[in-house]
């Protein structure tokens, strides 16, 4: 880990014996208890959410959930197979556009860019990652939906998710490439490689685990986004009808069913949440493992 400077100081706080006044000791003990409490309180919601999602979602987690269409209100059984498929397709298409885009932009920032332009593009990437997801939805609505280029469609939803993923992928590529030691670039240049050759056959492979981690985390993050899909991919009660038709997605279905007054739909929302959380958590853990294995 890169953060070790403070804790690897030559002695640790606990090692130091000193005579303290009672007030000082009491204050220290109270503060220690307080920050420990902060840590516990911070983690309670995580376990509460995971517990409830698992508890409420598990008893409808069956094969029908993945293979059937949502039922009419008030009718039991059925599933959200179309939404699961829709999420995979919309996120997949978004990645196809966004991953090369972001990786190339990251390569430029780390390897070829310089000066104010590089600073400006890095700033733009950071600012873009702070733009609320719903506004990216509004942007794609104005650009692709309202203009009739795609209309409400899986394509429009993918475009919105691609914009959301872009800054994360760009930044993590940029950072992963910067971690490759400068000596390797000099060595490659010394044996006659041009800079694109150096990047493509030396630097990029060396930085690959970091880039893959960034990409997977970006995908996991947007897979759970509903806000930018509400008025781009819209929603549908049918199976996938092609990239140019409105498409049901897991996150939007959870939203619609959670605020619906029917208990059967609320149960589907819990199970959908369980599936979504499992997808996101498993991909996050995989991403972490890829990075840590080095």
């Amino acid at each position, binding site marked *: 880990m890169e953060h070790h400077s403070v804790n690897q100081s030559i002695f640790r706080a606990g090692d130091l014996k000193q005579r303290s006044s009672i007030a000082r000791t009491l204050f*220290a003990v109270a503060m220690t208890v307080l920050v420990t409490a902060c840590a516990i309180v*911070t983690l309670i919601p*995580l376990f509460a959410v995971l517990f409830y999602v698992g508890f409420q979602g598990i008893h409808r987690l069956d094969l029908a959930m993945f293979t059937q269409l949502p039922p009419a209100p008030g009718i039991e059984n059925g599933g959200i197979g179309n939404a699961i498929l829709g999420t995979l397709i919309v996120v997949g298409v978004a990645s196809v556009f966004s991953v090369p885009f972001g990786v190339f*932009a990251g390569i430029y920032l780390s*390897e070829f860019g310089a000066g104010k332009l590089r600073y400006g593009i890095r700033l733009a990437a950071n600012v873009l990652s702070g733009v*609320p997801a719903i506004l990216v939805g509004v942007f794609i609505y104005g*650009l692709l939906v309202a203009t009739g280029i795609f209309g409400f469609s899986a394509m429009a939803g993918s475009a919105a998710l691609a914009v959301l993923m872009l800054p994360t992928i760009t930044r993590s590529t940029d950072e992963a490439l910067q971690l490759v030691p400068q000596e390797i670039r000099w060595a490659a240049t010394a044996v006659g490689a041009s800079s694109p050759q150096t990047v493509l056959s030396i630097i990029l492979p060396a930085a690959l685990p970091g880039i893959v981690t960034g990409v997977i985390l970006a995908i996991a993050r947007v897979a759970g986004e509903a806000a930018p899909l509400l008025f781009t991919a819209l929603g549908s009660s049918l199976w996938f009808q092609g990239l140019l038709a409105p498409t049901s997605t897991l996150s939007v279905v959870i939203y619609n069913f*959670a605020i619906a007054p029917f208990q059967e739909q609320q149960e589907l929302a819990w199970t959908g*949440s369980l599936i979504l959380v499992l997808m996101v958590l498993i991909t996050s853990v995989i991403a972490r493992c890829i990075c840590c294995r080095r």
Partner: protein
Amino acid sequence: LQDLNPLTVTKPAKPQAARRSLAEKLFDRGFIALTFVFAISVGFIILGIALTIAYGALPAITTYGLKFLATSAWNPVAGREDYGALPMIVGTVVSATIAVCIAVPLGVGMAIFLSEDFIPSFIRMALVFLVELLAAIPSVVYGLWGIFVLIPLIKPVGVWLNTYLGWFPLFSTPPAGLGMLPTGIVLAIMILPIITAISRDSLLALPSELRQAAYALGATRWDAIFQILIPAAASGMVGGIMLALGRALGETMAVTMLIGNSNRLSPSLLAPANTIASLLANQFAEAKAMQVSALMYAALILLVMTLLINLVAEHIVNRVRANYH
């Protein structure tokens, strides 16, 4: 090692320039140009977002002007259309403020806990990972949990506040279930990971000499934390808090599920309210003509708010990085 006599050393061959084939050179040029185009496009996307939203908002801006910011009518009925975004602007700011007020003490406390050696390092790493997971849970799942778990849970608190502190404007309405309070709490949970991560990074980025010097002068752990480490890391923490504030302002799904989506302005935290992001999520898909433009106008306000906050946060975080790296 035979040719040590400089006279006998053969002259080095001339550097062989221009031996790369045309195709190779074109590839090299093309590759760099391609990365440049993609990188510059990231900048153009920001511009595109601002221009698209501003263009869409133009009809509403010319019709309602600045009055839009200060009135609270929201009437999409054709012929009697009138739009004002004051309740949503207030709701956006208030919900984000509640979230920050709850999350800052917890997040900074957690960051101190995770940057000190209270517990063994492997448990600390596990906790850092758990905080990351907290950030990975999708917004709709927090919303669902909020509706069915949190709201029933805090309902008695709301009733108590209204019964005994009802004279105070903030608690002046009977709790409606959905409203500002559960929204603020869930938003706080959602921004906790950012505040924790950035505060911890700022504390860990401090040179270890600061701490050693403090101990050498007889400071206890907590003297060092309060008098040396927190002041030194403060600007980084503030940057992180601003980023979190930006996130809270634009957070949509959990908010729209919990806030009640009422366009009436109420001082009470127990009453339903609305935010700009929530308004967009609710109305955009079915909106027509002038309503779309009014929604775009509201979106533009949110965009300006988040851009400003992010730019300031970025500036602060960068300045801190420059100081210690």
